[in-house]
């Protein structure tokens, strides 16, 4: 039996009066790659941002129901949001390197947490760059600006940057939407390797990507969870006709 690490129970999310997620009931298991597909505006990104409470930055945001990580409600009073965000590393659709050196980008999270030892930081940076297969490419120019890297390298840098947080979860919000096929392939390979260590939630607007890497896939539509199942099942015999329509390209 797979171990549930994230559980949404009747979870709804509103911006003002507008429901963006409606009564989501869903479980995510330890060490799986969990894909979320759905057309634009279906609430996929909102779900990720609800998990690490990045939606809190939007003034009118409000939730109902519960969203639990290892049995603990993310929206319970007294939860440390800083702590929570460190557990759920997030990669955004467009790579956002900070205007600093490659080294400082990776070390950023650790520095926020108060790490000052240059030696430990150097070790951490090297380790994270190796895990994302970026080390060979940048080892001799760690002090140059991260903005000078190519798009694919920047996205792997962002991935390395969250590894430095030592997170339990890796959340990716359409991470390859702006990348070429080879860079995309490298990211996907890295994700497959990561499955042993992390639980991965991959939001993608590319259904084929979900088919390639996800163990299980959820289909969101207009803020509702239409169905969630093993990826091969979703793509071969979906139980809802809307899922079938979406993955066969009839809309979306």
């Amino acid at each position, binding site marked *: 039996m797979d171990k549930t690490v994230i559980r949404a129970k009747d979870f709804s999310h509103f911006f003002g009066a507008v429901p963006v997620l409606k009564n989501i009931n869903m479980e995510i298991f330890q060490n799986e790659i969990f894909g979320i597909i759905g057309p634009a505006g279906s609430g996929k990104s909102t779900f990720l941002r609800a998990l690490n409470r990045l939606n809190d*930055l939007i003034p009118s945001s409000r939730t109902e129901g519960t969203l639990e990580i290892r049995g603990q409600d993310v929206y319970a009073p007294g939860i440390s949001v*800083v702590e929570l965000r460190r557990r759920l590393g997030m990669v955004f659709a*467009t790579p*956002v390197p*900070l*205007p600093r050196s490659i080294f400082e980008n990776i070390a950023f999270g650790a520095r926020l947490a108060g790490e000052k030892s240059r030696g430990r930081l150097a070790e951490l940076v090297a380790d994270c760059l190796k895990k994302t297969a970026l080390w060979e490419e940048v080892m001799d120019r760690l002090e140059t600006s991260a903005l000078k890297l190519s798009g694919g390298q920047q996205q792997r840098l962002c991935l390395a940057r969250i590894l430095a*947080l030592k997170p339990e979860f890796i959340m990716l919000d359409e991470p390859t939407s702006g990348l070429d096929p080879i860079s995309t392939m490298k990211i996907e390979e890295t994700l497959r390797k990561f499955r042993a260590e992390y639980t991965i939630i991959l939001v993608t607007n590319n259904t084929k990507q979900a088919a390639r890497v996800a163990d299980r896939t959820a289909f969101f539509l207009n803020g509702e969870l239409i169905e969630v199942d093993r990826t091969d099942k979703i793509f071969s015999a979906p139980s809802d006709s809307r899922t079938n329509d979406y993955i066969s390209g009839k809309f979306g």
Partner: protein
Amino acid sequence: MRLHIDPKIEQRFFRALLWLLTGVTVFILFFIIFYVLKRGLPAVSLQFLTKNPVEMGKAGGIFSTIVGTVALTLLAILIAAPLGVGSAIYLTEYTRENWATRVIRFGSECLAGIPSIIFGLFGFILFVTKLGLGWSLLSGGLTLAFMILPTIIRTSEEAILSVPYSYREVSFSLGGTKWQTVTRVVLPSALPGIATGVILGVGRSIGETAAVIFTAGSSLHIPNSLFSSSRTMSVHFYILAREGISMSNAYGTAAVLIIAILAINVVAYTLMNRFMRKYC
């Protein structure tokens, strides 16, 4: 009937017109600088820069007025920069847009448009007489600080707002607190813009006459405390020229003032460029 003009000729005509307009602007600017330097530089010498004025400025140098200008400008910036940048951070990062922020913004914009002599009068009434600070560096510095505050708030605000929202998101998502996000991500990226505002403030302070003459006075002694009255270069120039004491020394003072402002701008922008080129 509509007059038909060949687009090529039209293109050429407007290119020439715009070139001319730019040319006139540049010419006026250079003419002023050239004229002041031509009349002023003969009076400038090492003696002029390092000796105090003698006989109300008829003879001697302008050393005490240089000290006065530097002290006053420094004081104004030291007061206005933290206040201004702090307000800008609060307005952009810590509050949401509401009627209060709009009132503050409107107020500071109005302040920016008030003639400096009104600030002088205000400073005179509040600091010099009411608070009993007298004609002093402190009165002058506070008045100048109030005068340049709106500029610093405005430019800082704009600089902070131009930092991409995604940088903030990244910082938060990596476990940054609001304060860490502001100090480690937003401010470093906004620094060039903030510095521009501060430099504008320095420029205005150095050149300011009306606000200073009422508040810092016009003593020719080297100021030795925050409470001493002091004369700045621009006030010195004004008095020398106005009272016909010495036109050549007046222009000498003006030349030094212009060179100082040019130098500050060049140095500041060079430093900023170097800073920018490192990572951006």
